[in-house]
């Protein structure tokens, strides 16, 4: 009995360590720092004709059709499109693959906010060496500046998310609400709506880093500035304070539905009118059509509410690029696919399937602007989005470790949603957590 017990203890203690160690064993720390030799457009072209096989990690739904037509155009090329998870899940998988040095895809979808982290981590190929410089002027300024990190170009913009106000017109009409043009009116509408129908909320919010940073962006805040390895954080700047002051009212008075975005309850609320508006990126229509069929014909799109009456400021929310991890073995071929999907024939295919482009030509084309959305009651919603894209406030930048920072957003700012902590204090705590991590990672933070 005694011997057994001791063995049991030993096994248990070991098991703890083994389980963790085994998980970690997959993550070596080899740096793949091979210098990239420049590749010309001709070489890319001949690589496409010679053929081969590339693996693409992406979750964006319209890429499926792009791959089909790409393979039809270059029959010798085989593209393995893999959904390795959405957002953070995929980054985790990608980071692990890069660290392990095996199983790294040739192309990966990376959102703009996450790109600096991968680029500065020396995980991505600088596309300048593959001829990305020739694409200057092809993409809208916001996304194009988002893929430029520390003097290099580390991805090609695939889509963009200029924000707009999506609102349920049926609910607005029923309660005689005017479409808010400022955030002040938005808060007033929130009160009026919730008072008229205690089950209805102006929007949902359980603390979302992407949304918060986008609104701070629109308010003119520049909480993150990056200069090489020097990082400056100020989540109490003018823009952040403006945002916190207004949004605090919605949280304190329980005017936002405590429903997480993308949850079942969220889709349900968008369909049955208990979540009346969304301020979100222009990539949303496709999601509404597929996820909220009950809302067809009820929803409309309007410009983002403003922080100052009569303003025209907008911000980006989400949007991703396609990038080429350094460890991938088929750079020329991968770049050929990148170009096809983001600046070539792929763009049209993706727009037709509901994606929002990041290319100037499409954003300005009549066909695009005049497209009527049956979901929005025949409204030409792209006009609103295109205007928003042009109005995006300039000079925003994300942290070079934004993925990590966003992962601890709910630890800090989230407190404001479930306890007496104020949003401003939450932002302060978030800044401290991010600064600590930045210092740990060798950045100079102040």
């Amino acid at each position: 009995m005694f011997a057994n017990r001791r063995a049991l203890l030993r096994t248990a203690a070991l098991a703890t360590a083994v389980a963790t160690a085994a998980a970690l064993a997959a993550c070596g720390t080899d740096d793949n720092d091979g210098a990239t030799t420049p590749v010309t457009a001709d070489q890319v072209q001949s690589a496409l004709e010679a053929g081969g096989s590339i693996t693409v990690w992406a979750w964006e739904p319209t890429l499926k059709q792009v791959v089909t037509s790409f393979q039809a155009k270059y029959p010798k090329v085989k593209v393995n499109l893999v959904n390795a998870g959405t957002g953070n899940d995929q980054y985790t998988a990608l980071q692990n693959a890069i660290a392990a040095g095996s199983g790294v895809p040739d192309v990966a979808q990376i959102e703009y906010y996450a790109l600096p982290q991968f680029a500065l981590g020396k995980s991505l190929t600088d596309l300048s060496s593959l001829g990305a410089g020739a694409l200057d002027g092809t993409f809208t300024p916001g996304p194009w500046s988002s893929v430029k990190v520390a003097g290099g170009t580390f991805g090609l913009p695939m889509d963009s998310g200029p924000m707009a106000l999506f609102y349920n017109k049926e609910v607005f009409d029923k309660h005689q609400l005017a479409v808010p043009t400022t955030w002040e009116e938005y808060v007033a509408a929130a009160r009026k709506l919730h008072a008229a129908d205690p089950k209805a909320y102006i929007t949902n919010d359980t603390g979302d880093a992407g949304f918060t940073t986008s609104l701070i962006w629109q308010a003119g805040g520049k909480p993150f500035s990056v200069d090489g390895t020097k990082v400056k954080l100020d989540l109490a700047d003018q823009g952040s304070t403006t945002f916190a002051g207004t949004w605090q009212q919605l949280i304190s008075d329980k005017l936002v539905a405590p429903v997480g975005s993308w949850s079942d309850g969220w889709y349900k609320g968008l369909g049955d009118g208990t979540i009346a508006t969304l301020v979100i990126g222009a990539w949303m229509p496709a999601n509404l059509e597929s996820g909220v069929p009950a809302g067809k014909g009820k929803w409309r799109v309007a410009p983002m509410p403003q922080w100052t009456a009569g303003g025209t400021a907008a911000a980006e929310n989400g949007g991703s690029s396609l990038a080429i991890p350094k460890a991938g073995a088929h750079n020329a071929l991968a770049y050929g696919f990148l170009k096809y999907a983001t600046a070539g024939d792929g763009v049209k295919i993706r727009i037709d399937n509901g994606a929002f482009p990041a290319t100037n030509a499409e954003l300005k084309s009549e066909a695009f602007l005049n497209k009527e959305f049956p979901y929005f009651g025949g409204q030409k919603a792209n006009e609103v989005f295109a205007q928003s894209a042009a109005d995006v406030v300039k000079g925003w930048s994300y942290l070079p470790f934004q993925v990590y920072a966003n992962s601890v957003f709910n630890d800090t700012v989230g407190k404001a949603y479930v306890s007496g902590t104020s949003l401003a204090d939450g932002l302060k705590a978030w800044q401290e957590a991010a600064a600590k991590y930045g210092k740990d990672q060798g950045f100079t933070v102040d």
Partner: protein
Amino acid sequence: MTVLGPPTIQATGRAGRGSPARRRRAWTGWAFVGPFMAVFAFVFLAPIAYAVQLSLFRTRMIGGTSFVGLDNYERAFTDPQFWSAVGRVSLFLAVQVPVMLALALLVALAIDSGRLYGRAFFRVAVFMPYAVPAVVATLMWGFMYGSRFGLVGDLNDALGTSLPDPLSPDLILASIGNIVTWEFVGYNMLILYSALRTVPKSLYEAADIDGAGRLQVIRSIKLPAIRGALLIATIFSIIGSFQLFNEPSILQSLAPNVITTYFTPNLYAYSLSFSGQQYSYSATVAIVMGLLTAVVAYAVQLRAARRER
């Protein structure tokens, strides 16, 4: 017999002659133990050695990997997030484990009493939750806990009550404790029940003859008989509490602002390595936590052993 005979003689003969034979005998032993040792070294020792090695380095985005000695351990010992996680699982351990074991004991005694109608069904029904994967069980409970769309919300709607939100900061630990209790009462009941089954019938007969009551039988025969099993169940539960991960990790998507990334030590190690790429520090946290678990479990065992004496 004739076949077995000669080798025995040979062996004794050679053993007397001195060292060469002894060496051969030593090698024979190793040949038997070798396969086990190889597997043991590979699956047990190597990962631990790797984790320890990892914990002595630090990898940064700027500056790469460098040897930092015991810096990570120093950081772990002064890390408020880590210790708040340890505190949380300790509180969980102190409250949930006694409740769960008491329930398991009650059920085991009830089934063993022979007075229960539908004993077999009852036993299976109580054990069933253990067969449900923890992930599924947590999802299920998560739906019930929902104060908007879940059972709690429906109850509030139907009865016009306002039940407290089980996923609020004040109640979350209790809610998780409830899930874990539901999952593991049956398992612990089985351990205790099987120990009760080994008590010889003659003891009960003797107790009957002596005129002992039901409670006295429990106190004087049954409880002493299952003390060993109870200890095993306790140690398993201690380890389980310290390793709490599945339940908070799944509930996190329902209550992201309540369950932090450092809610339990395991969750902390997980988020350190998977969203922060702090593999080295994560390994350190895992090692410290492993040692801590071993120490606590060992202390409980020592205490129990002393009481037995």
